């Protein structure tokens, strides 16, 4: 390969020009973010943004490869803390400074594309220049199961942690740097201590569990299997699950250290950790085996000792043992029981998912074709139209009802019974019953509109129109009228705010 300067300057300079140029380019995003910070109102004199950028890479590298990597929130929070120490007078600005730095390192100004630079490869004297694109990332976001996590690129790790005179694209080298850094930070020690601690916890849990199971075999009633024991089992199971996962991660991470080229120190510590984790894992698995069998031990013992617990609804007397009992409970407890009951009684609810194209098609369906595009719901023909016609009230009846209801326009509240009393005075004799019915229905509608029926267009239009402007309140007075019975509602004009 011909060198970048084409041997013009010196063979030595030529040989490493490309690498050194790259190292130089890698620091440019930081300079750029410092320049741009002024636009965001961050004063370079107040904050050392370069140091914050270094800190961001450090925070990210510190947790890469562990079970829980640094989330975006972690990084921003950490930088905010540092920034507020740089400029204690402006606590409100610290977060902005932190955000500016993180956004800069993510290349947010260019939609998190790679940073891109062009290197001029001059070649031998007389050749035309070749432009070579060099693009890289510093930080990037990945989605993890606990939210977006920040990862540092190999280039960022090597440059910002290892100095400038190295082969920047060497991924193994980057891992070695990460491990070395974590060893220096005593993070391995901490991880090893946690693993050892967890092993001791598992041994303890195994012992108490064995004791508990023995006791249960003798007498089911010796421990509280309703509440206490399941809780303990869940705790133990969580412990095992978490440890096995965590240990696997650590093992993989550390194994990487043994495979890559690292310092003897890292290798020694890695070896120790691998041994420790191997031992701890056997203990965890043993505990897990006991946990899996635990419930079985209880059930067998229970059947043997004939203490079967009632678990199915049909084994309960619904009225006496559920309804009356719930009614007697205070509100919060009743709510718990009732919702648990309802959730089970109502059965399956289906989650709705989307598909991009279907969603757009649905939203952009031409209005005319909409009816046919709607999914064909199976409707049982019930002579709907006919029923509607029968339900429709003749115009004179509607007019008379409107006149009766107009009594409320005075502004005060009028009793439903008073309205009903007025019906015979307004309506022609043959229509009296129908008018009274319409007034009753309108008042009822004003008291409790049937929104579901309204949405389906299932309501006779007249009631809707008549009840539209009024509202009704139930104050407990009983209605015993020749046209109807129930509650004597207080009917009034609907107030402004309830219309809006």
């Amino acid at each position, binding site marked *: 390969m011909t060198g970048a300067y084409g041997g013009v300057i010196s063979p030595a300079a030529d040989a490493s020009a490309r690498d050194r140029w790259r190292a130089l380019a890698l620091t440019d995003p930081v300079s750029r973010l410092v320049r741009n910070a002024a636009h965001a109102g961050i004063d370079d004199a107040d904050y050392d943004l370069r140091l914050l950028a270094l800190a961001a890479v450090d925070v990210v590298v510190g947790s890469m490869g562990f*079970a829980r990597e640094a989330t*975006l*929130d972690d990084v*921003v*929070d950490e930088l905010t803390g540092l920034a507020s120490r740089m400029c204690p007078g402006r606590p409100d600005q610290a977060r902005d400074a932190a*955000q500016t730095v*993180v*956004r800069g390192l*993510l290349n*947010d100004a*260019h*939609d*998190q*594309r790679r940073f*891109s630079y062009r290197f001029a490869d001059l070649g031998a004297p007389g050749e035309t220049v070749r432009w070579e694109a060099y693009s890289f990332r510093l930080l*990037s*976001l*990945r*989605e*993890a*199961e*606990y*939210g*977006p996590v920040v990862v540092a690129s190999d280039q960022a790790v090597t440059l910002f942690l290892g100095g400038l005179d190295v082969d920047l694209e060497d991924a193994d080298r980057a891992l070695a740097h990460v491990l070395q850094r974590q060893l220096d930070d005593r993070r391995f020690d901490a991880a090893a201590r946690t693993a050892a601690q967890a092993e001791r916890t598992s041994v303890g849990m195994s012992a108490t569990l064995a004791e508990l199971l023995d006791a249960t075999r003798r007498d089911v009633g010796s421990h509280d299997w309703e509440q206490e024991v399941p809780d303990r089992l869940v705790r133990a199971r969580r412990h095992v*699950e*978490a*440890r*096995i*996962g*965590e240990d696997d*991660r650590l093992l993989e991470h550390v194994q990487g250290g043994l495979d890559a080229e690292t310092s003897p120190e890292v290798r020694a510590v890695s070896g120790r950790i691998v041994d420790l984790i191997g031992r701890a894992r056997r203990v965890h698995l043993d505990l897990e085996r006991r946990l899996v069998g635990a419930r079985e031990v209880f059930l067998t013992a229970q059947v043997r000792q004939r203490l079967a617990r009632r678990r199915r609804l049909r084994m309960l007397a619904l009225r006496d043992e559920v309804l009356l009992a719930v009614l007697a409970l205070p509100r919060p407890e009743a709510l718990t029981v009732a919702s648990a009951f309802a959730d089970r009684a109502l059965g399956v609810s*289906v*989650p*709705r*998912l*989307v*598909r*991009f*194209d*279907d*969603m*757009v098609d*649905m*939203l*952009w369906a*031409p*209005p*005319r*074709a909409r009816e046919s595009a*709607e*999914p064909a719901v199976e409707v049982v023909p019930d002579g709907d139209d006919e029923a509607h016609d029968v339900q429709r009230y003749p115009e004179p009846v509607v007019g008379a009802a409107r006149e009766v209801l107009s009594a409320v326009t005075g502004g005060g509240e009028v009793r439903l019974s008073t309205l009903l009393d007025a019906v015979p005075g307004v309506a022609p004799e043959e229509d009296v019953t129908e008018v009274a019915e319409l007034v009753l229905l309108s008042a009822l509608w004003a008291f409790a509109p049937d929104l579901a029926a309204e*949405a389906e267009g299932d309501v006779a239009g007249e009631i809707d129109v008549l009840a539209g402007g009024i509202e009704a309140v139930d104050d407990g007075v009983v209605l015993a009228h020749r046209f109807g019975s129930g509650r004597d509602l207080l009917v009034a004009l609907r107030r402004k705010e309830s219309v809006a």
Partner: protein
Amino acid sequence: MSSVAADLTQVRAAAELLGFALARRARPVEGGVYRALLDRYRSELGFKDVVDTMAEGLGLEVLGVPRSGMVLAPEPGGAFATRLADLRTTMDADDRLVFGLVLIGIAAFAYPTDADFDDPETRLVEIVRVDEFIRGSLDALGGLGGVEGSPEERARTAAQVYADLPQLITTQTGRRARGCTLKAVEEVFGWLVEQGAAREAGTLGPDTFHLTDRFRLLVADSAGGAALDALRDARARGEAP
């Protein structure tokens, strides 16, 4: 597809995995059952076949298994498909056009090229930038041909409606009010968050969202259309160096 009949424990595990995938809140955390099943899906061909077949029978398709969990898409008209009635019911025809346009706009803004669909990098998007992008690309949509009722015509009409809306109207309390495009974009983001296709990124400032792997896979699954293609072109051109 493997010809070996699946044993029942495998079927049970497959059903469990689909159950987790359907519960949008479930996260495959380290050491959990969901995570174990996901790993099994990725590594065991026989199990993958069982899961895929079972999903097919339920009217679902597995779009992908990113680290954040399995992403499913419904067959149209199936039990799991979203219907118009599941959306905000008060939307009129114009609202729906704008909603669709914003949805396409966000997709084009975040993933202008096909290579973007394979890039696991999480995209950050901001309400104002999405709105500016859509506004800047309306001309591209206005130039689409197509007869009345065709997707091209709908895109044109949507662009027209969008152009006629003001960018911002505020309520008395200073929030965005209905009837401006920023509010429309905000509402689509709200819906995406509900769908698990986006998350709020409050630490980077207000109005900033992450688009999740779920959204990336949903858009990648799309066959595209005149409007999406036009906007992706506009976006790819706009950011070319």
